[in-house]
């Protein structure tokens, strides 16, 4: 029982991080109809910026500034490259962002080198803590808290501000947004930047846990994609629920058959696709055309 509860808890914590990662991915997919393969690379960039900035600015400022820089990188990418593939065959977007992902990974290799790095967790959350039934990492509790705060902030932004309303409208029908006289071009650039900084902040948070290497982006790209397919495009709760499902699938399958822990999410994805192709909370979108 104790193990069951521990794994359940661990799955939820991981799920929150996957949720943050997938949220940015989903928003870009929703508004731009571009499957952003560079999302993983932006995640890695976030972690690497934090690695460098932490030494100079300390943990908190790095946590704040690294995602902003990644956001700016996202803006530049959108402005120079991604913008050219809107409304075209989705394959163009796929190829474009795939190329970008490889280029960014190479940039990481050039700037930070090929070797792996380890970032220390900030002192106040280093080490383990005993909470009732389980020994858990303090850092992961802190990470769960950060993820919760972030998710709440994004939710408030989407639900309670006029900008959020425009973005949501953009996700559901971008042409109508244009017809209503909103600047769709600018909206897209901003959403891309916003999605990128979400990837960046997920990278900063995950860095101390998973350690840094140039290919770390590729490792999280697939889970993010699976989260979005399971949760559905165009729904905030879809990304959160999808994230939790993927997190839980990873931890709970260790209870039954550990070898399944990497595969389980794909089985779930297959089942969801068979029963409800648009995902659990999703609206009709690119993936159904």
């Amino acid at each position, binding site marked *: 029982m104790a*193990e069951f509860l521990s794994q359940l808890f661990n799955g939820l914590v991981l799920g929150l991080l996957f949720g943050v990662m997938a949220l940015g991915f989903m928003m870009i997919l929703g508004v731009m109809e571009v499957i952003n393969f560079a999302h993983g690379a932006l995640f890695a960039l976030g972690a690497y910026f934090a690695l460098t900035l932490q030494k100079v600015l300390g943990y908190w400022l790095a946590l704040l500034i690294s995602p902003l820089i990644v956001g700016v990188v996202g803006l530049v990418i959108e402005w120079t490259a991604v913008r050219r593939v809107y409304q075209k065959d989705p394959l163009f977007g796929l190829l474009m962002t795939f190329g970008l992902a490889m280029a960014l990974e190479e940039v990481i290799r050039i700037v930070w080198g090929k070797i792996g790095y*380890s970032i220390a967790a900030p002192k106040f959350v280093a080490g383990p803590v005993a909470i009732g039934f389980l020994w858990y990492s303090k850092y992961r509790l802190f990470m769960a808290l950060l993820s919760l705060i972030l998710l709440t902030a994004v939710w408030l932004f989407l639900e309670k501000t006029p900008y959020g309303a425009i973005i949501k409208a953009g996700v559901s029908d971008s042409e109508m947004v244009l017809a209503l006289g909103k600047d769709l071009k600018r909206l897209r650039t901003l959403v891309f930047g916003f999605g990128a900084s979400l990837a960046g902040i997920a990278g900063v948070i995950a860095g*101390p846990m*998973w350690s840094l*290497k140039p290919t770390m982006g590729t490792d999280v790209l697939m889970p993010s994609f699976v989260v979005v397919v399971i949760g559905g495009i165009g729904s905030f709760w879809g990304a959160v629920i999808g994230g939790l499902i993927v997190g839980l699938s990873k931890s709970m399958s260790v209870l039954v058959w550990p070898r399944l822990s990497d595969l389980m999410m794909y089985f779930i994805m297959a089942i969801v696709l068979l029963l409800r192709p648009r995902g659990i909370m999703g609206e009709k979108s690119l993936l159904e055309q």
Partner: protein
Amino acid sequence: MKKRGTIVGFLAVALVAFFVLNWQPVAAAEKEVRLGVISPSSGNYADQGAAERRGITMAVEEINAKGGILGMKVRMIIEDTETDPAAAARKAKKLIERDKVHFMLGGISSSCAIAISEVAQRANVIYFNTNTNSDACTGKHAHRTNFRVGPSNHMLVFAIGPWLIKNIGKKWYFMTHDYSWGRSGTAVNRQILKKYGGTELGEALIPLGTRDFSSYLIKIRNLPTKPDVIMCTVGGVDLSAMLEQVHEFGMDKDYNFGFTLRDYPDVWAVGPEKNIGYFAVEWYHKLDAPGVKEFVARYKKRFPNASIPVPENCCYNGYIGARELLRAAQRAGTLETTPIIKALEGYTFSDNMKYNPTTIRSWDHQFIQDVFIGQAKKPEELKEDPTDFHKIIGYMKGEEVARTREENPVQLEPYR
């Protein structure tokens, strides 16, 4: 009648194919020796790959500085295995067919090395796999053209395993990297448990590329019996991430970790705080053996800006492998495969920077050499020398720990 025609046709095609594939131009006078270096610069073992290439480079440059071999300079042609067996086989083919290399060396990942050695054997090109340890590389997948420079898992585990049983305990839990090397490591560890009457408490199979170990660690915390030793055959970036999380979950305080092999680059990446456990080591830069100090000095001079400031086990194996391969060609007086293989088989050399000489065993092509037992130093013990991660607490002679002929009944292919 028609059927016989088909068979004859098939035989004719096979015969032609046989000759085409085996046809080699009459050896033109060579002007250089081409050494194919096939080793990962991306994927799980990129750091280890870079380290072994530093060793190989040193050996080649030292030999070239003395005029090369057979009056020719040695040129390295480097390919990346991407730590992926399929890519490794493709690159090996490219090195043999397009670059016409005389020999190949490199490896790190046992699964990659097995793929490369198949290609090399088909083409009758000598391949030294430099930093692999799976027993399969000189066992089930042994080849006439394939030599293994590092110790086998059997040698490593028969060094560290009995020490752990005697000094730490008999109840073990296994963490196994789910590919050739990891599975072979845990298989030998099970032999140790059986031999010494230990108990296995379970096993976690870790897929290559695993980033998150939390659920595995939680599982261990919740085992009904607490293991005396968590015996790990996990390597590369994955091991760095694991050490990171072992520390994060406080497992390093409450459990003893054993490791089939400690690759220096993995602990160098995580730093002294998270450097834990007991392990087998192939070589160490603080060994008190002849030639070690000079080697370290040459390394520092050649690679002042290397990501790892001292030569470590992967660099050592790369160096020894390249040097012995080229020396054997010099002894054989030719670049032809068979004479060089004969010059290698049964050869013993003592300038190996270890306590006892190393012998290249003739029947499975395993380098039989000293294996060291190490313990992770505590961070405060690294104050004086920040590179001094291991405390060497013992060693075993190669022949004491290697498989016997009965235990490894391989038959190498005939000479070609």
